């Protein structure tokens, strides 16, 4: 009797037929099971003796379905060639565990296969098939939904995005009243700058740094008011419709504001999705040039539009190549050239460029918290690579890699920091101040020292700092108090809730792992309590891998999120940003 097949399994098989193209079929039939690719995969290296992580083994999970349904040998003699069909929803779950949880689509095995088998490409296809029947990690579903519905993968609302850009403009103008800040939706700009939503949510400094560089170069630039997300979760989820939709939105926006060139901020998957795969998914030829901001910044320095002083970036640096940049887009030399221009001590990491190992956060892995332990374990290879450089700072041109590497650095207790080229270039900028023309009889301004200016910044705010590390509480409290805030402290989850109820703070910083109630529980209780729900929360954690647990809650996400270790400037910047967006203006 024929075995019954579930509705979803049948759909996956039917849809596979529609997804196959010559490149994919070639890769599916050409594997000779030679095993040459085995130890090119970081999962294998970190799990010695476990063949289920081997690229060919993982590939066979997909190949076996193809053989059973689309290849004659597998149709006629399935057992002979290990052809196997899918029948149950459990089979789909098992496939999900492999294609999402055991491969970051990094393509390292691809470039090490003598036959040219491109596992990453058909692994992506398999992801797309599973997604099409709703079988996917929860994080993938949440992020895809946000990108479909809100237009960016972190669900940043238009008003929050615009508020952030305006706030950054004000910050820049506080520093330099003549700064043009961040132009939004200017027509016929030479450069349209698109970013990763992570920048708005967690790392606004990368936006202001880029703005400072564009302005210093005298660039006629703008940021789109909407459809500004250059990341594309379609690359990770394998959903070509999402990939095409997201790419098309951005392309159409550039055309609508008559932009001359699209510059993509430093992000490996964003660059690959927008610059390389976007036109293919959107099935449209793009009429304007697109480039990585790395290339733009390099050109500014080489052409003398901006000047940099590399001594402003002391320390020993190394560079991590994002897989998407290096193995799928050939962006390997420009970042190095730029890095050498803005720092003195650069130490290459080995292997590097197209042979570099994945940060382990690729392929959407950062959004799949169920696989975090596996990911961190596989990161041993990268951690060893980082350590061997002896560098203090690892630079990368990818937001995903920033998060992936930060996790690894914490997990493997490496004494390193992660940064991006945009931060280094902005830091090294030499801005020539115009010569001041003395004006007669101008009343002398009241002198205010920087400390006094800063002291005003958080004046009038009550902030609750909840963390189980007394040293950290002391450090954050001191910084906040120095800036004028009134600080209330809590050292565990229960105390944090008690203080929140009693003190009604204007903002609360919250650690995730605390005794008593964890930060996650505290956060959920806060959000579900009518009285406390409106208190803005800034997560401050040393365990970024738990980030997803917070964002997966069915409650409004936190207003801010900061990774430890954190410096004074970042504390003030993030707190101010949240308060300003929440209450209008800082008092």
């Amino acid at each position, binding site marked *: 009797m024929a075995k019954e097949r579930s509705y979803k399994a049948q759909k996956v098989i039917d849809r596979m037929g529609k997804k196959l193209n010559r*490149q994919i079929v070639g890769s599916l039939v050409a594997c000779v099971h030679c095993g040459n690719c085995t130890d090119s995969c970081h999962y294998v290296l970190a799990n010695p003796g476990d063949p289920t992580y081997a690229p060919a083994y993982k590939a066979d999970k997909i190949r076996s379905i193809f053989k059973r349904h689309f290849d004659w040998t597998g149709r006629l003699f399935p057992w002979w060639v290990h052809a196997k069909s899918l029948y149950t929803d459990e089979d789909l779950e098992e496939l999900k565990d492999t294609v999402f949880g055991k491969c970051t689509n990094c393509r390292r095995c691809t470039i090490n296969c003598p036959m040219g088998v491109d596992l990453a490409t058909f692994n992506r296809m398999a992801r797309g098939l599973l997604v099409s029947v709703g079988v996917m990690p929860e994080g993938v579903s949440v992020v895809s939904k946000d990108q479909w519905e809100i237009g960016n993968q972190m669900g940043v609302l238009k008003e929050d995005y615009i508020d952030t850009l305006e706030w950054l403009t004000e910050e820049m103008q506080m520093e330099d009243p003549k700064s043009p800040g961040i132009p939004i939706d200017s027509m016929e700009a030479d450069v349209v700058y698109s970013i990763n939503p992570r920048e708005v949510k967690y790392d606004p400094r990368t936006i202001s740094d880029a703005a400072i560089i564009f302005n210093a170069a005298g660039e006629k630039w703008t940021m789109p008011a909407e459809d500004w997300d250059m990341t594309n979760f379609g690359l990770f989820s394998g959903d070509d419709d999402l990939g095409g939709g997201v790419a098309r939105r951005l392309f159409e926006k550039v055309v609508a504001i008559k932009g001359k060139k699209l510059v993509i901020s430093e992000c490996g998957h964003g660059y690959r999705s927008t610059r390389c795969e976007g036109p293919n998914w959107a099935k449209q030829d793009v009429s304007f040039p697109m480039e990585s901001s790395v290339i733009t910044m390099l050109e500014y320095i080489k052409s003398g539009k901006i000047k940099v002083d590399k001594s402003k970036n002391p320390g020993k640096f190394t560079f991590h190549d994002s897989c998407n940049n290096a193995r799928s887009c050939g962006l390997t030399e420009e970042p190095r050239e730029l890095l050498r221009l803005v720092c003195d001590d650069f130490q290459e990491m080995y292997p590097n460029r197209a042979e570099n190992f994945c940060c382990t956060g690729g392929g959407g892995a950062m959004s799949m918290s169920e696989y975090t332990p596996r990911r961190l374990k596989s990161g041993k290879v990268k951690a060893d690579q980082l350590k061997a450089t002896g560098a203090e700072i690892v630079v990368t041109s990818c937001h995903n890699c920033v998060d992936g590497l930060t996790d690894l650095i914490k997990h493997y207790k490496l004494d390193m920091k992660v940064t991006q080229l945009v931060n280094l270039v902005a830091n090294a900028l030499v801005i020539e101040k115009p010569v001041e023309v003395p004006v007669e009889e101008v009343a002398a301004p009241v002198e205010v020292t920087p400390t006094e200016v800063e002291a005003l910044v958080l004046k009038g705010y009550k902030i609750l700092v909840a963390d189980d590390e007394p040293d950290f509480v002391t450090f954050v409290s001191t910084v906040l108090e120095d800036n004028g805030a009134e600080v209330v402290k809590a050292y565990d989850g229960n105390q944090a809730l008690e203080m929140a109820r009693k003190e009604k703070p204007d903002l609360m910083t919250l650690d995730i792992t605390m005794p008593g109630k964890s930060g996650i529980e505290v956060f959920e209780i806060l959000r579900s309590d009518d009285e406390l729900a409106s208190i803005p929360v800034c997560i401050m954690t040393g365990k970024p891998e738990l980030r997803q647990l917070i964002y997966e809650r069915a409650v409004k996400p936190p207003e801010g999120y900061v990774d430890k270790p954190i410096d004074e400037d970042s504390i003030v910047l993030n707190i101010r940003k949240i308060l300003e967006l929440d209450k209008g203006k800082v008092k």
Partner: protein
Amino acid sequence: MFDLEFVRGPLHDGALAVMTIVYIIRLYWLTRFMAGKERQAPTGRGDTNSRKGFIYSWGNVGMPWAMESTRTKLFLYFQFVIFHLGVTAAILLMFSISFYFKDTPIPLPLMLAFRIIIGAAFVVGVIRIIRRIGSKYIRAISSPDDHFSLWLLTAWFLFAYMAAANNVANGEWKLLTFFIMGSVFLVYVPFSKISHYLYYPFTRYYLGKSLGRRGVFPIKRFR
């Protein structure tokens, strides 16, 4: 049942014809799948392009330094070279006996050349069998087809080695076995993993073309 005349003639020719027909069907099947289109503007290093990319990709097989997987495992790479030279030599031996030497013994220098290459390939075949069974990783990905193909070729090398003199007086059974196995091999090839060389030009062409356009191929390494 089989005499030498039959196995060197109709059996061998028939097997060759079957292989050719199945190959053509196989290629037709592959080309029925549309090739994915690349619309993106070239990226990456300016000193390469699609053409350079696929030429490099095709030539990759002869450049052990190009891939980390071969560069760091030269012993395996040389096994690969010897094994494939052995297949070529055994096929040439079969064809040269069928179409050229027929009942004439093969000249000594040529026979020695065949024996050295095919003998070495046999040794590699044995090493590969041990690896396929002994390595946890390879065993986990091996299907009956993988095992059978390897055993078939290794055994065929053994008989090719013995038959290389093409001397009936030395034992007709050696030649008979070599030809019968060769015919089985020819018929089996298109249905098995051995047909990988048919796909090689396609997979490497498309990968090379795409990665050449994206400035990744030829891979540059900097020490």
